[in-house]
């Protein structure tokens, strides 16, 4: 599904990632664990194309992504959930979730929306509220729902459990675990394994800009 | 440390320009003179730009300086070259000292816009003041130099050499200033205000100081322009005049105190010739020149001479 090979990423002249290789198999849940500043967010942003790689390749379904603009990558079916949620504060929750569908001209957004609501009923409950009226944890749920709208193939979830109260974190883990049945491929980052361990099929550890596989 | 070659350029430049004065054809001498006046205003902008601020209202001080000089002649018959320039410089510096308390709080586009508003207010005031000639402004004449009466035919060379000498002096002065601790701090403001505050320094005060310096130089340029051209009008405070200063500043680059003079000379030359040969497309020529510089010489014209680094 996703294959990253020998990726080098620098921000400005500052090298953040060095020689990253990693693979997310179809229908597999892959974890990327490392502490703050290790380079997790940078790696996901590079996969999405927000950051340019200096070296190396990213393939999605055997298609090279290097020369593809960000929005085109999203339209391949990659859903990205940023760590800081980044909802549009003055749009309603439902509008936030629907933006990817509108942007890519999805045929039947209502059906996909209903499916997402079925997976995360909470989001439907506050679908009429403005995003800025939600708590941080609720926003995480909405960000996940939004990522699911474009992420019909692959989900990139950046620290989905970070800064969330334990109850909500468990709920998020449950929702994410439920995605297994959808046949989705998922890459999850976390600073430890406290929430994602049960759902993972494979694991990588990232430390100071370098990634290595780790048995579970 | 790299050797400081800039100072070594200023002295021969002074001698060369002074010596060339009587030899240059009238138009060329005038062009050099006007370029130096513009260059002085832009030199002030360079100081401001070192702190990261760009004013779209430098015309305010340029115009104030010119009117201070003009008023001395017009109302008090004190048409003495150094006195007029001194008054223009001081008045602008003084007004900037007052407004600086306010403007030092502003950054980016809001700094640019507020300075523009002030200069447009001056423009509006002058246009409505019939005592100062309203839209037409008035003529400025020069009769003495430091108390010594001037003969009619020597006025032009006296203003020319005064401009040249003063310009070189402020060029050297600003050069030394930028190399001083205070000047380095100005650059630090542009790079990282937060860090400076965390070193125990008041960024606002630094900006205020540089704002006053820039204004004083603009006033000086305006006063020199008034005695050079012999006519002033409210257009000097209109936004397009300020726009031209920003234009020259970006065209020049901020790499050296010599850059504004290079930039203004190129600007004046392009403008004069374009105006001469194609009066309907001279603005277009300037616009295209500017776009080419922004696209291909992002560091301004000066970066052609100073490819390796941006030291002052």
């Amino acid at each position: 599904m996703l294959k990253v090979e020998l990726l080098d990423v620098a921000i400005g002249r500052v090298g953040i990632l060095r020689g990253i290789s990693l693979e997310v198999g179809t229908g597999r849940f892959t974890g990327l664990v490392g502490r703050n500043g290790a380079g997790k967010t940078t790696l996901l942003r590079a996969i999405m194309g927000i950051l340019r790689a200096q070296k190396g390749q990213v393939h999605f379904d055997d298609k090279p992504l290097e020369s593809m603009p960000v929005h085109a990558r999203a339209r391949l079916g990659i859903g990205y959930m940023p760590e800081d949620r980044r909802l549009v504060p003055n749009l309603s929750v439902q509008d936030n979730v629907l933006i990817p569908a509108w942007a890519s001209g999805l045929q039947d957004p209502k059906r996909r929306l209903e499916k997402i609501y079925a997976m995360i009923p909470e989001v439907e409950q506050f679908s009429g509220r403005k995003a800025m009226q939600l708590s941080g944890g609720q926003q995480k749920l909405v960000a996940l729902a939004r990522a699911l709208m474009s992420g019909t193939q692959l989900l990139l979830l950046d620290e989905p459990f970070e800064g969330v109260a334990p109850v909500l974190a468990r709920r998020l883990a449950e929702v994410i675990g439920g995605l297994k049945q959808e046949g989705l491929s998922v890459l999850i980052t976390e600073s430890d394994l406290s929430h994602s361990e049960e759902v993972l099929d494979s694991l990588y550890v990232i430390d100071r800009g370098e990634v290595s596989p780790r048995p579970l | 440390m790299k050797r400081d070659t800039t100072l070594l350029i200023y002295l021969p430049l002074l001698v060369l320009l002074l010596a060339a004065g009587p030899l240059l054809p009238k138009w060329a001498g005038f062009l050099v003179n006007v370029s130096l006046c513009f260059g002085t205003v832009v030199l002030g902008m360079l100081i401001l730009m070192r702190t990261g601020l760009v004013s779209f209202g430098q015309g305010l001080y340029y115009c104030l300086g010119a009117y201070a000089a003009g008023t001395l002649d017009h109302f008090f018959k004190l048409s003495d070259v150094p006195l007029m320039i001194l008054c223009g410089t001081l008045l602008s510096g003084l007004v900037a000292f007052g407004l600086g308390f306010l403007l030092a709080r502003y950054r980016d586009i809001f700094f640019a816009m507020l300075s523009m508003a002030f200069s447009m207010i001056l423009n509006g005031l002058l246009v409505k003041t019939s005592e100062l000639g309203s839209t037409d402004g008035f003529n400025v004449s020069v009769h003495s130099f430091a108390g010594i009466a001037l003969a009619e035919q020597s006025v032009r060379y006296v203003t020319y050499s005064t401009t040249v000498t003063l310009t070189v002096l402020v060029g050297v002065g600003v050069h030394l200033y930028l190399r001083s601790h205070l000047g380095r701090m100005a650059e630090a403001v542009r790079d990282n205000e937060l860090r400076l505050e965390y070193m125990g320094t008041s960024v606002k005060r630094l900006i205020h100081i540089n704002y006053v310096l820039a204004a004083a130089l603009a006033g000086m340029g305006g006063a020199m322009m008034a005695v050079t051209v012999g006519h002033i009008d409210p257009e000097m405070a209109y936004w397009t005049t300020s726009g031209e200063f920003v234009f020259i500043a970006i065209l020049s680059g901020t790499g050296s105190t010599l850059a504004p003079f290079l930039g203004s000379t190129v600007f004046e030359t392009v403008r004069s010739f374009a105006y001469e040969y194609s009066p309907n497309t001279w603005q277009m020529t300037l616009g295209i020149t500017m776009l080419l510089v922004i696209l291909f010489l992002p560091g301004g014209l000066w970066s052609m001479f100073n490819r390796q680094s941006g030291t002052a």
Partner: protein
Amino acid sequence: MAQQTGEFFLEARGVNKKFGAVTAASDINVGITQHSVVGLIGSNGAGKTTFINMVTGYLKPSSGSILFQGRDITSLIPRQVTNLGICRSFQIPQLFGTMTARQNLRIPVGIGARHPGAQRMTDAQEMATVAAVLERFGLTGCADQVSAQLPEGTRKLLDIAMAMAGNPEILLLDEPTSGVSAEEKFLIMDMVMGALAASRTTVLFVEHDMEIVERYASRVLAFYDGRIIADGNPQTVLTDPEVRRYVIGEHVLGQGHAGGSHA
């Protein structure tokens, strides 16, 4: 925690900080004695940087007060706090990006030399001081490179060196080794601590790397959800069950304490 007064070098009394509905600091009471080296640990958003921001005047507590040498500094702004002798470094290095490393350091050295009461220096003396600092931090080799283009570890060092150039009474280091390669992390800390050894400067540092905390801190404060949940010597705090659960996390990998936890 003990509520003594007057005897601490730096003290926070009942400090709270709210951002809208979010509580970033809740009832922080802590006293720091002079010459101590204190590690601040806690997961992201636990309130460590907020604490540093409040001490240095970048943020104002919603309630409570902060005292330095018995003097209330709660309402001071960063410039004033710095002038009292409290300096800090930053998680993301705050450098003068277009200047070289040498020029960067020259700014605080120049400021220091112009303090009232400080000894004035000639240009040559200033440059010599700068050169000495560069030498001490092993930055001589890249002294004339533009700081924005230096590697992250070097930038981090330069950032800390600039904070130290003010000869602080208290030095606050915000994640001094984040974004730095594994080989460099002890190197950086050794240089910093070595340079401070003579003056026995009081240090507070925020750190995620428990190896660093264990090796350099004489006291550890563990933050969780805006509160300090443990305070004491490194051995005690790092083995505290609450700290292990909330701060370090039982499943941490790639850190010294993760030992055999991936079972």
